[in-house]
C-alpha cells in the first residue's frame, strides 16, 4: 500500500515538475527560516538550564531611585552576603562572588629565568567561596571545594586556564604552582575543575578564595560599606523549597534599612529584587559579566518571520493542489470504484504532502549552513549546527514536517477525497461546478499572501528610511573627519596629555585637537543636579555634563548662540548651556542667560554662553538639559579633526600612523585604539541595521514565495482557459486585451491585499518608530511606492505566462479540442 502511494506520489511530482518546484521551494524557504530561527531561539533559551534546582536560584540585584529616575544595578552592597548568611531564613545557599572586572595581567614565574611569562588582558576572574561550587556543580580534577577556597591567595583554575598558564604540566602537577596577578598578588593554585560544557552566562575560569579579598590589599573599598553598591559585588541565592522570592526580598530590604546610614536630604529610594536565573540571559537592565544579553523582542520577531514564511509556503501548496484537483479527479474516481474508502484517499494525499515536505526539509538542511553564514550578524558565534549530533534538531524537524504537512495537506486531501466517483468518471465538467468554494478559498489565501508580502515591503521601506534619517540628521555638531582615542580613566598625568596634544598638533594632516571627557555624542554620560534661583523660585534640574577644553566647541563646529564660550581653566569656572536648558530656566532669549549664576553642588558657576541644541545620545532619546564646562582632570579623550583627504595634506592613515608613534612613546603601557566619530555614532543603530537587514531578507523571500504561487495559479488558469483564449483571438481580441482579461482577476487580489496591508503596516511601523524621540515622517508616498512596487512585481510575474498564452496561435489550441 505504502509503496504504491510513494510511487504515484513521485510520478505525480515528476509529471508536474514546475508545480512541484514551486511547492518544494516555497516550503523549503519556510522550513530553512524556521530551522535557523529554531537554532537561535534554542541557543538562547538553553542558557543555565542544566543547574540542579535552577528554578530556585536567583540573583539579588538593586534598584535605586533618584529624583524620579531609576538606576538598576546588577550588584548588591558587599556586606549584605554575610548579614544574609547570619540572619536570613528560608535560604538554602547564599553565594557571594566578586567579579574582578578589569583585564588582569598574569605573570607566570619561570625557574632559572628572571623574566616571567606574561599574559595580558586576562578575564573571567572572580573571588568566591565554596558555596559557589555547591550551587553550580563542577567536576573536580584536583583539590576539593571545602579546602581549595579556604585561605587567602588560593585560586582554583579551570582546565583550560591551567593549560594556558602551565601548558606542559598535568593538572595534578599544576596544584601548588604560584603565579602573580597584576604584578603584586601572589596566588597559589589549590584546585582544578573541568570547564563548563553546557551553555552558561557564568563563564568564569579562575576562582580566587574570597578570603583573598578580605584579608589582603585587594580588599575593595566598599567591602564593609552599606551605602555603596558596586555592580561587581554579586550575590546569588538558592531558596529553600517553598520559599517565595518576595520573602527574601523583604529580608534583604530590612537588612539594608537597618544598616544603611541615612543622610539628611537624601530622597533616594533603594529596593531589591531577586532575579530568576532564567531571566539573566534576557534582561537588558542588568549586566551579565561581559556576555551577550539576548533580546527577547528580536527573538519574537524572528519567530514571527519564520511563521509567516512557513505560512506562505503552505498557502502555495494548498492553492496549487486544489487548483490542480481536477487533474487528479479521474484517479480518485477510479480508486473509489475499485474499493478505496475516503479515509484511505485522505491518507494517500497526506502521504504525498509529507513526501513533498520531506523533500523540502532535506533541501533546507542542506542549505542551512549557508544561511547561517548569511545571517552571521544575528547569530551567536558559538552556535553550532551539526545535524547528526543534535537530536533536538531531529525532533524539531520531525515536528515541523508533521505540522506543515497537516496544515498544507489536510484541506486539499479533504477536497480531493470528496469527489463523487460517478461525476468525475462521466465528465470533467461536473467538477468545476462543485469547486466554487475552493476557488473562493484560493482567492482569500492569495490575498493573505499579498497582505504579508506588502506589510513586509512597507515596513522595510520605513525602517531604512528611519535609518537614513538618523544617520543624516544634523546632530548639532560636526561628526565627519573626526577621530578620538582615550587614555585610561584614572590617568592623572596631565603633563603627559599636554605633551601628546602638542605632538598631535604638529602632524600636518591634523586641523585641530581638543581634550574632553568624551565626544559630544557617546554611550556614556555624566549627569548631576544644578540649582538656579530666578529670584522667586528655585529650579532644580538633572543636567548632563560635558567637559572639554576651549577648542572643544570649535572643533565640533557647535553653534554658539550667545556669550563668549568657555574660558581656559583647570576646573569648572563657567558653563555653556544648551538651548533646552536655557528654555527650561525660563530665558526667552539666549542672551538673557549670559552671566546668570548656576549653583552646582555648592559652587556658584556663571553661564558663559548658550549653545544650539546637539544630540548627546542616539536619536532614541530626547535632548536633555546639558552644560559644557572645563575640567582638565576629567578630560581623557583626544578629539582630533583631520583635513579632508587630498594630495596636499596626505592621507588619514599616515596621520594615524604618526599619532600611534607618539602614543607609543608617551603611553607605552597602553594600546593605541582609535575610533572615527561617524562610525561610532553609526554603531548606536546596530540593532536597527540588523532589523533592517532581516526585514529586507524576509521581504525578498515573502515576495518570492508569493509570486511563485501567483505564477503557479496563473499557469493553471491559462491552461484551463486555453480554448477560451483561442476563441477570443479568432473573433478578434488583441494580445493586450487577453493579457488584461487574464491578469485582471489576479491584480484585484493584489490590490485587496494592499488595502488590507495599509492599516496593519501603518500600525506596525508607527509602533516601532515610537522607540525614537526623533523620527522620520510616516509619508503617504511610501505606501503608494510600496503598493506600486508590489503591483509591478505581480504584473511581471503574471506577464511571464499571460503574454505567452495570449501570443499563442489559436489554431493550435482549437484543433486539439
Amino acid at each position, binding site marked *: 500500500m505504502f509503496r*504504491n502511494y510513494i510511487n504515484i506520489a513521485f510520478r505525480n511530482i515528476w509529471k508536474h515538475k514546475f508545480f512541484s518546484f514551486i511547492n518544494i521551494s516555497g516550503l523549503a524557504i519556510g522550513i530553512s527560516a524556521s530551522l535557523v530561527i529554531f537554532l537561535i531561539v534554542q541557543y538562547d533559551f538553553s542558557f543555565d538550564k542544566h543547574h540542579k534546582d535552577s528554578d530556585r536560584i536567583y540573583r539579588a540585584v538593586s534598584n535605586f531611585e533618584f529624583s524620579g529616575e531609576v538606576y538598576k544595578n546588577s550588584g548588591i552592597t558587599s556586606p549584605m552576603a554575610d548579614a544574609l548568611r547570619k540572619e536570613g531564613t528560608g535560604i538554602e545557599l547564599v553565594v557571594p562572588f566578586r567579579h574582578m572586572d578589569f583585564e588582569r595581567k598574569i605573570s607566570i614565574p619561570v625557574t632559572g629565568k628572571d623574566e616571567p611569562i606574561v599574559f595580558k588582558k586576562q578575564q573571567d576572574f572572580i573571588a568566591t567561596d565554596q558555596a559557589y561550587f555547591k550551587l553550580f556543580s563542577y567536576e573536580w580534577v584536583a583539590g576539593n571545594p571545602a579546602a581549595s577556597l579556604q585561605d587567602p591567595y588560593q585560586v582554583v583554575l579551570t582546565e583550560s586556564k591551567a593549560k594556558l598558564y602551565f601548558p606542559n604540566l598535568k593538572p595534578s602537577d599544576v596544584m601548588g604552582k604560584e603565579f602573580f596577578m597584576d604584578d603584586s598578588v601572589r596566588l597559589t593554585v589549590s584546585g582544578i575543575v573541568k570547564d563548563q560544557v553546557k551553555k552558561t552566562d557564568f563563564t568564569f575560569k579562575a576562582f580566587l578564595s574570597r578570603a583573598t579579598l578580605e584579608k589582603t590589599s585587594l580588599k575593595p573599598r566598599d567591602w564593609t560599606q552599606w551605602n555603596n553598591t558596586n555592580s561587581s559585588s554579586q550575590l546569588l541565592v538558592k531558596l529553600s523549597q517553598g520559599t517565595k522570592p518576595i520573602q527574601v526580598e523583604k529580608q534583604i530590604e530590612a537588612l539594608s534599612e537597618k544598616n544603611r546610614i541615612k543622610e539628611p536630604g537624601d530622597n533616594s529610594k533603594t529596593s531589591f529584587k531577586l532575579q530568576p536565573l532564567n531571566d539573566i540571559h534576557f534582561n537588558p537592565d542588568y549586566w551579565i559579566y561581559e556576555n551577550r544579553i539576548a533580546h527577547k523582542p528580536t527573538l519574537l520577531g524572528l519567530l514571527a518571520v519564520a511563521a509567516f514564511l512557513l505560512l506562505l509556503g503552505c498557502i502555495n501548496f494548498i492553492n496549487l493542489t486544489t487548483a490542480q484537483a481536477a487533474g487528479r479527479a*479521474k484517479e480518485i*474516481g477510479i*480508486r473509489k470504484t*475499485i*474499493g478505496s474508502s475516503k479515509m484511505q484517499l485522505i491518507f494517500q494525499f497526506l502521504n504525498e504532502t509529507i513526501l513533498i515536505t520531506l523533500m523540502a526539509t532535506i533541501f533546507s538542511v542542506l542549505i542551512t549552513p549557508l544561511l547561517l553564514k548569511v545571517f552571521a550578524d544575528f547569530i551567536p558565534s558559538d552556535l553550532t549546527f551539526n545535524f547528526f549530533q543534535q537530536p533536538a534538531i531531529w525532533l524539531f524537524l520531525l515536528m515541523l514536517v508533521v505540522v506543515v504537512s497537516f496544515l498544507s495537506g489536510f484541506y486539499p486531501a479533504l477536497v480531493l477525497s470528496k469527489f463523487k*466517483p460517478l461525476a468525475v468518471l462521466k465528465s470533467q465538467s461536473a467538477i468545476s461546478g462543485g469547486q466554487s468554494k475552493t476557488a473562493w478559498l484560493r482567492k482569500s489565501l492569495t490575498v493573505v499572501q499579498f497582505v504579508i508580502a506588502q506589510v513586509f515591503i512597507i515596513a522595510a521601506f520605513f525602517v531604512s528610511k528611519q535609518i537614513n534619517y538618523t544617520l543624516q540628521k544634523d546632530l548639532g555638531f560636526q561628526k565627519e573627519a573626526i577621530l578620538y582615542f582615550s587614555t585610561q580613566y584614572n590617568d592623572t598625568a596631565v603633563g603627559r596629555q599636554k605633551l601628546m596634544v602638542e605632538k598631535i598638533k604638529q602632524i600636518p594632516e591634523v586641523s585641530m585637537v581638543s581634550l574632553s571627557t568624551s565626544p559630544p555624542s557617546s554611550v556614556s554620560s555624566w549627569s548631576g543636579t544644578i540649582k538656579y534661583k530666578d529670584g522667586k523660585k528655585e529650579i532644580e534640574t538633572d543636567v548632563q555634563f560635558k567637559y572639554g577644553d576651549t577648542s572643544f566647541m570649535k572643533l565640533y563646529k557647535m553653534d554658539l548662540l550667545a556669550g563668549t564660550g568657555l574660558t581656559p581653566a583647570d576646573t569648572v569656572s563657567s558653563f555653556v548651556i544648551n538651548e533646552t536648558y536655557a528654555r527650561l530656566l525660563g530665558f526667552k532669549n539666549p542672551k538673557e542667560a549670559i552671566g546668570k549664576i548656576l549653583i552646582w553642588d555648592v559652587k556658584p558657576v556663571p553661564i558663559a554662553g548658550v549653545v544650539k541644541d546637539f544630540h548627546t545620545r542616539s536619536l532614541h532619546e530626547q535632548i536633555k538639559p546639558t552644560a559644557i564646562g572645563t575640567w582638565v582632570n576629567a578630560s581623557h579623550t583626544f578629539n582630533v579633526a583631520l583635513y579632508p583627504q587630498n594630495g596636499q595634506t596626505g592621507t588619514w592613515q599616515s596621520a594615524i600612523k604618526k599619532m600611534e608613534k607618539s602614543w607609543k612613546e608617551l603611553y607605552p603601557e597602553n594600546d593605541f585604539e582609535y575610533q572615527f566619530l561617524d562610525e561610532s555614532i553609526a554603531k548606536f543603530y546596530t540593532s536597527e541595521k540588523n532589523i533592517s537587514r532581516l526585514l529586507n531578507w524576509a521581504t525578498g523571500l515573502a515576495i518570492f514565495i508569493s509570486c511563485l504561487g501567483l505564477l503557479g495559479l496563473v499557469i493553471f488558469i491559462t491552461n484551463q482557459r486555453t480554448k477560451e483564449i483561442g476563441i477570443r483571438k479568432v473573433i478578434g481580441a488583441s494580445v493586450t486585451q487577453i493579457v488584461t482579461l487574464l491578469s485582471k482577476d489576479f491584480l484585484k487580489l493584489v490590490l485587496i491585499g494592499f488595502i488590507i496591508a495599509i492599516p496593519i503596516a501603518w500600525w506596525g511601523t508607527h509602533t516601532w518608530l515610537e522607540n525614537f524621540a526623533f523620527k522620520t515622517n510616516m509619508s503617504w508616498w511610501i505606501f503608494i511606492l510600496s503598493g506600486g512596487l508590489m503591483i509591478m512585481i505581480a504584473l511581471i510575474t503574471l506577464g511571464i505566462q499571460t503574454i505567452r498564452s495570449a501570443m499563442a496561435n489559436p489554431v493550435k489550441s482549437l484543433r486539439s479540442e
Partner: protein
Amino acid sequence: MLELKNISKWYNSGANKTFILKNIDLLINEGEFVSIMGPSGSGKSTLLNILGMLDEPSEGYHYFMGEAVHLMKEKQRSALYKKYVGFVFQAYHLIDELTVYENIETPLLYQDVKSSERKAMVADMLDRFQIVGKKDLFPSQLSGGQQQLVGIARALIVSPKLILADEPTGNLNSKQGEEIMGLFKKLNQEGVTIVQVTHSEKNATYGSRIINLLDGSIQ
C-alpha cells in the same frame, strides 16, 4: 442474487420531477449474464450504477446478496461493494500514473491483502491474460484492447461475484470487441454473474437474458 423493487430515480427541475428511472423491478440470479439495452438516455448506465452501488436511487428497495442496500450507510455499502463487485468501464479508467502491474494490484491494497499473496495473485492474473510482458508499461503505452484487458484483470483480481460492465467494447474495434466478449462468456461459464450495458445486438447475444430499457422503464 440481487433484486430491485420499485426503484425510481429522478431529478427535480423546478416544480417538475424528471425521471431517469421509473418503477423498476428486476431480479438477477447468480450465474446469469444479463445485457441491458436501450437507446441513449434511456437510463441504462444509471441502472447499472445503482446495481453497483455507485449511485443511489431516489426511492425503492434494493437487495444484494440478501442484504437491504437501501438501508445501509455509505460505509457498509462500500464494504459490500469491495467484497463482491467488479466494474469495467467503456473508457477503461486506468490510473495513468501507475503501471499495468500496479493498476491490477491496487484493489488488493484496499482489501489489505498481504504483499506475498498480492504478488502471486497479480502474477496469476497477468499470466491468465497473457500480458506478463507488459506489466511495467503505463496505460498510455498500450492499445485500447490491451487497456481494457487490464481493466478487466483489475476487476477480476478481487474474485468478484458480480461484474458490471458499462459498454466494455464501446471504444474497441470489432476484433478486440469479440475477444473481450469471449472472455466475458468464459468468465460467466466459470460462475461469475455479469451485467453489461451495450448498444450492440451482437454483444447482447453473448448473454443469457436481455433487458430493454426505454425512458426509464423496463419494456
